[in-house]
């Protein structure tokens, strides 16, 4: 078995070991998968839906609001739910793992039991998948593979954005530190920067760290 569902012993395991290949194939093509994506950002949501082959291949439904999430998902009765791992609303999905009536299809977090670590890859990429009881693992795989690629891109964008923001902030601090040195020592900008850099090298620190220390202690004196 390449992968499996978590604790629920559902229809997957109840199937005869040797399923006629044609039957499995027919099932795969006859019904598009119903996927719910929980994503408040409309731009991101659109990209995810495109990645997952909406609207032609799969039926992808986006839920953007955190309000009444459990009921909104139950009403759609999806095969798979995808949610950003950074969303606090993920805990709401855990509630759906306990079906409250025999008519409901409980979902379980998708947990991969094979060696290739699909679950780990998904979590590291920042997406978690919940699948309905009895879902065939080979139908989940392509969806999750596509989602992982997309979420990795989001994560990369986020990291780059943060790096840019940090660089900008450091720039500002260094400029203020230079200003303080120029005023206190009566030197020009280049000399002030050279002094900062020398101090940083002597202390084994980054220029931004020395500048930060200078600016925050200068605050004490003013």
């Amino acid at each position, binding site marked *: 078995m390449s992968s499996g569902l978590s604790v629920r012993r559902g229809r997957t395991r109840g199937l005869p070991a040797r399923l006629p290949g044609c039957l499995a194939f027919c099932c795969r093509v006859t019904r598009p998968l119903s996927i719910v994506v929980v994503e408040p950002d409309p731009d991101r949501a659109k990209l995810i839906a495109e990645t997952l082959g909406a609207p032609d291949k799969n039926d992808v439904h986006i839920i953007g609001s955190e*309000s009444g999430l459990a009921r909104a998902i139950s009403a759609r009765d999806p095969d798979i739910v995808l949610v950003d*791992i950074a*969303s*606090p609303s993920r805990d*709401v999905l855990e509630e759906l793992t*306990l079906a409250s009536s025999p008519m409901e299809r409980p979902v379980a*977090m998708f947990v991969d039991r094979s060696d290739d670590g699909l*679950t780990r890859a998904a979590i*590291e990429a920042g997406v978690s998948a919940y699948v309905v009881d009895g879902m065939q693992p080979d139908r989940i795989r392509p969806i999750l593979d596509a989602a992982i690629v997309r979420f990795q891109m989001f994560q990369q964008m986020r990291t780059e954005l943060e790096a840019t923001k940090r660089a900008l902030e450091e720039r500002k601090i260094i400029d203020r530190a230079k200003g303080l040195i120029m005023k206190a020592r009566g030197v020009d900008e280049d000399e002030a920067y050279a002094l900062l850099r020398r101090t940083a090298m002597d202390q084994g620190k980054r220029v931004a760290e020395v500048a930060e220390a200078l600016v925050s202690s200068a605050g004490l004196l003013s």
Partner: protein
Amino acid sequence: MNATALRAGFIPLVDCAPLAIAREIGFAEEEGLSLELTAAPSWSALRDELALGQIEAAHMLAPVPVAMALGLGGMPARLDAVAVLSVNGNVVGVSAQLAERLAAQGHEFGFDDAYAAGRALLAAAEGTLRMGVPFPFSMHAELVYYWLAALGLPSPQGLDVRTVPPPLMAAALARGEIDAFCVGEPWGSIAVEEGHGALLLPGSAIWAGACEKVLAVRHDWAEADPVRTAQLIRATWRAQRWISHPGNLSTASEILAGPAYLDMSADIVERALTGSLVVTGDGKRRHVPGFLRVYEGAAGFPWRSQAAWIADRLAARLGLDRAAAAKAGRQVFRSDLYRAALSPSLADLPGASEKVEGAIPTPTPVASQRGTLVLERDGFFDGAVFDPSAHG
């Protein structure tokens, strides 16, 4: 000292204090650990990070490792609770509309009587009572089910317990999606500050000795690395002892209020640590002894009987075999590892690893290694007791 790195995750709540203090005041370092703490966005994400080995330890809802031992919810992994991080510390609150109706009925928000508050709530509620809790497997959910069932409210007919992430609790009240909630601090106080609700009871008024958060690790990790497991238990114990000194409370509040932890006003954080809470929008203040306990009465001791209680409640509600559940549940509260880590010269621990839950009405001296241990009250509001020897 050459400290070894240890990664731990937490949810920004007042009761993450033992881990935060272990790092910030240097107890982890004294034990030879370089403790890296990272906030997690949700309980399920934190559980998965721990189960998949992205971190070694976590601040965790006490029922989560127990539920996992019963095969419930998400990840199929075994987690062990190697210490209790906090006892009690939750609040039950109601929406602004319900608070108005309660006040009109003459309820005075005494914040101490679970019978009076519960009956008033049932009289004021219209239709099914919708109650928000942070997670399906949480002491919050267990306290709510226990309390309202004992008052005669049947679930699911009369009670609808819903999962609402704590930072969204006040908003869910304001939008009318829930009528009431049970949540850990600071989120109850924030609902009051924002004018969306009032606090009805501390969790301790329902069960005075409820284990709330535990220090969770992977079972395999604890077995493979007994040295670091013991270092972590000791660092946490030292931090809990430090927090329990009244002189340290404002420092602890300042640290927790910082951007790396709760990132909010220290005044709000201090309410839970001192047990002095503002319960209504017009500023009624109530003092609750033992509101959040981290040290007194061997608060850190992982009683196997408490795990059995949680397992029994989950099994009864979800239709599992109760004896088997209690047996599986008690295995994950590792009083053996806790004892192995804390020598008698450091901590005075109880002689037993199980007790009859709910049987201590007033602080009581008990058999312990050094004979100095006094256990705190642990009664249930309805006077019931749970004898673990009768379960599993």
